[in-house]
């Protein structure tokens, strides 16, 4: 079937890609209308799902081993079963389209170019958990996607895929689009729920506020990522077992990898989970480093994942159990492999840095992001992030001392694991990893000779105190 699909020039899939979710991205002659989607076999999976019992749909998703694509990788089917038994309150489903992790840019393609795929996945998911009201929480930065999605929702309702008694199944569903105001923390599921409720997006404490038990307006709420919901459609389309058979054993299916940074061909690539290593991805698919450069570091799963050095020697295990030495380039791109080496695959945003990059500056940039995006609810994150930013800025400006590098790491250690939400880890992991793995670069900046650019006004100002009066 994929043979007769034509893609826009420059957007053709790489031979090692397997396009499922991204089947219609940059496809020639494909637009966001429902007509186009139905012609391509859209909403057929929904019809199939509606003939099944909701429990069967959940069982199918559980069987598939589908894991969430928002970053944490929690099994989607298991999450759905967390709705308390004997629940009498309404159940809500929220689609997390607040894709705000720096380095992650996969969901935006779906909502911009193939919105009905998401809607169909959502209807199936809502049917499975028996939710009659669902929200697409879309970030502020997608104004065009919001228009597209609104139009798509109206079309789907007109065609009877949404609203009362969907396709004669007796199942009702209303989906609304809710737009955020551009805050990273709204991607955290309980912060997102507070935001929908019109409150400050302070993440809620867990326990007791696990969304599946006490979520939106105190009712059980399932929060799923855009790609996860599209994958639900794939599971139903292909069948749970067939889905589970493909790709890495513990994280089956396809994955969308967004590669950004210092490679020849950055972009989004859909691959079978685990079918490529980082080396194959970066060197083959993305064309390797830019001219004359070598890879220095990789952040494998969005800005908050711990950075990996490219010359780092990792311990891998051969099939016979013996230990072999390997590098980040030998690690397969599934959800778990990279986690064994101290980082995470997260949302699939791979950020690549070559030898032209100053790591303290990279970290400073990340710290600036996290300091601005901290919601300010809990003390360690609120006060720790600006402190880390101030320290890394000072080091980058050459005004730091070697002790400041240790202090920076120590501040991160004090945030990690002590906050209300996972932001505490997200903001402290980069600092912990950068200062540990690239310590020499930080220390180099604390030496005065490297710190001061020779002809800057700043250097002249600093030299004022280094020069004796009688010499002048």
């Amino acid at each position: 079937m994929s043979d007769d699909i034509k893609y826009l020039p420059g957007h053709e899939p790489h031979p090692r890609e397997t396009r499922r979710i991204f089947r219609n991205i940059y496809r020639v002659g494909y637009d966001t209308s429902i007509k186009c989607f139905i012609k391509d076999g859209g909403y057929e999976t929904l019809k199939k799902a509606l003939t099944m019992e909701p429990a069967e749909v959940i069982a199918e998703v559980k069987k598939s081993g589908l894991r969430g694509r928002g970053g944490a990788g929690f099994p989607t089917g298991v999450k759905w079963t967390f709705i308390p038994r004997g629940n009498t309150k309404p159940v809500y489903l929220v689609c997390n389209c607040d894709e705000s992790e720096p380095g992650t840019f996969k969901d935006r393609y779906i909502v911009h170019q193939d919105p009905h795929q998401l809607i169909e996945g959502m209807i199936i998911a809502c049917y499975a958990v028996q939710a009659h009201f669902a929200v697409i929480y879309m970030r502020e930065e997608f104004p065009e996607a919001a228009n597209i999605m609104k139009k798509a929702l109206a079309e789907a309702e007109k065609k009877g895929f949404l609203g009362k008694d969907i396709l004669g199944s007796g199942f009702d569903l209303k989906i609304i689009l809710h737009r955020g105001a551009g805050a990273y923390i709204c991607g955290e599921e309980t912060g997102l729920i507070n935001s929908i409720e019109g409150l400050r997006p302070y993440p809620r404490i867990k326990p007791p506020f696990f969304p599946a038990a006490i979520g939106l307006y105190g009712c059980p709420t399932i929060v799923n990522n855009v790609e996860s919901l599209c994958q639900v459609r794939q599971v139903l389309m292909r069948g749970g077992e067939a889905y589970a058979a493909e790709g890495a054993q513990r994280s089956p299916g396809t994955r969308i990898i967004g590669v950004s940074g210092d490679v020849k061909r950055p972009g989004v690539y859909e691959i079978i989970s685990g079918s490529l290593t980082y080396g194959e991805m970066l060197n083959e698919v993305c064309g390797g480093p830019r001219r004359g450069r070598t890879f220095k570091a990789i952040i494998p799963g969005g800005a908050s994942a711990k950075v990996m050095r490219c010359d780092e020697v990792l311990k891998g295990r051969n099939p016979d159990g013996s230990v072999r030495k390997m590098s980040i380039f030998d690690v397969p791109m599934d959800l778990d492999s990279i986690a064994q080496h101290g980082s995470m695959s997260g949302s699939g945003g791979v950020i690549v840095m070559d030898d032209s990059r100053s790591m303290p500056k990279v970290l400073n940039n990340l710290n600036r992001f996290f300091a601005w995006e901290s919601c300010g609810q809990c003390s360690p994150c609120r006060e720790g992030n600006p402190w880390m930013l101030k320290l890394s800025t000072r080091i980058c400006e050459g005004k730091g001392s070697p002790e400041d590098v240790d202090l920076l790491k120590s501040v991160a250690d004090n945030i990690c694991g002590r906050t209300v939400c996972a932001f505490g880890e997200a903001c402290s992991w980069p600092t912990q990893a950068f200062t540990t793995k690239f310590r020499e670069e930080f220390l180099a900046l604390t030496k005065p000779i490297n710190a001061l650019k020779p002809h800057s006004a700043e250097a002249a100002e600093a030299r004022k105190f280094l020069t004796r009066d009688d010499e002048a």
Partner: protein
Amino acid sequence: MSTQPAILPKDAAAAEGKVNVQINGKWYRFPKGMRIADACNSVGVHVPCFCYHPKLSVAGSCRMCLVEQGMPPRLAPGATPTYNEDGYQSISWMPRAVIACANTVAENMGIRTDGKLCAEARRGVLEFLLSNHPLDCPICDQAGECKLQEYTADYGSGTHRFTEAKTKKGKNISIGPRVNLDQERCVLCRRCVRFMKEIVGEEVLGVVGRGTHNAIACYPGKALDSNYSMNVVDICPVGAMTSKDFRFKMRVWFLKSTPTIDVTNGTGTNINLWTREQQVYRITPRQNDEVNSCWMPDDARLAYKYINAPERLLTPLVRTDAGAPQRPSTWDAAIGLVVEQLHKCAPSELAMIASARMTNEELYMVRALAKQLGITKLDIVPRSCEPDNMLKSADANPNSVGAKLVLGKSGSGLATIRRGVRNGSIRFLIALGEDLTAPEAGFTKDDLAGLDYLLCVSHSANDTTRAADVVLPGVTFAEKYGTMINVTGRIQRLNKAIEPLGEARADWGIYRSISEALGCDCVTVIACPSPMMVLEQMAEEFEPMKGLSWGSIGNEGKAIIDTGVSIPLIEREQAKK
């Protein structure tokens, strides 16, 4: 496996609806659902908290209460748990600390607050809170009762690693008529936000700004002007919210706090009276879950200024000739003069106005005095106010129930006395603790001028004392012991915080002295050495007070009469449980 007890502790605890929890190596039993912080504090293991307040919802945001927690190891399928010789399972400790305020106790849970993990977490959180804190303790009113100060001394690191520029926020912001806000001192526990939303029901305060620029602020166009606004000053763990009335007046460590009750309303809000030497500086609510929870209205809180006001009467005053000015006198001379006049007067020409602001003991002495004089025209001044559906009841007298019990009066006879004064049948009036020219009493200055003789006992000068022939200086609630019965029928104690000012004397003693000078020979009256002994006399005489003593009332008081009245705020709080 070693021997196990016949009945496992978990089963024994479950039978009582409790769970076994190990805290710092010792096993305790707590009711199910109890918060870890409350459990630890109840057995003397201190868990520091900023944001957690037992009366408010849990925020869990300050992260100060992080403790190390452990549970029995998860069993493999089909495996049975093993117990040690005491009947407990082993505990596997979690690598991450948990907050003690949001998590509840569970069977065989382990809590450690003396370990490295907990100490480091506390030190870390304090370091963060202090990093952008102005460290202006020397000029901060909260110093001495500041949680940040206390916890830093207890758990902080003692050294300072933050050398960057601090975040600038608003200072000395007037967010209401009685409260000032310093956003830089704030630790953003949001207790004030939750108090206004959950207890008062007015959403006035909120948080603005993101990240380190988070700050408490009023919603646009609103002010923190509720009559309960000053409670945020009490619950603020740091010096962010300060009372405009108290700020810069006195260092709290110089103050003595005396547990007593509020006398501006029938609710009898439990308070602490903060004094230094003979001066009262402030009033704060004292927790009593049956009366006022942890709160009090602002008007009652500020009703202490008259205690040290220049209007206070410090010596007995007498007027020897009609039309002459009052002159200071001595107690013996003044009482002698009163007795001389009273002897001249027929009981039918006498009337006495007492007060429901008196303690039970004073009322008892008033009754004895009335009996000695043969007075039949006796009543109190009723006083009402607008109830606020919170803590203020419609009865503005603090001891109406006591007055009804002791004197059998509730103000209905006041009009008769007024009429008697106006038609000349009453020639001699005794005003005890009441200003008769106040609207609720209803006398005019002319009424009082028309009397042959007016005796007045009062703590402050007013139009009645100015018209009186003899004025005997009594004391305010801050200067006396006694008991009052609130609108719900709860007897509560007043404690003396300062000595009577000048030559003023406790009112009950004044009435006793007059009775004695009039020739009263009743030992239960004249032999009473103290209000506590009066209370014991009363306990024998009045059925509802049977068996009561000063000690048995305690600081929380005792419900003795069922009046059928309840306090709305307390009702709501108990319904929530």
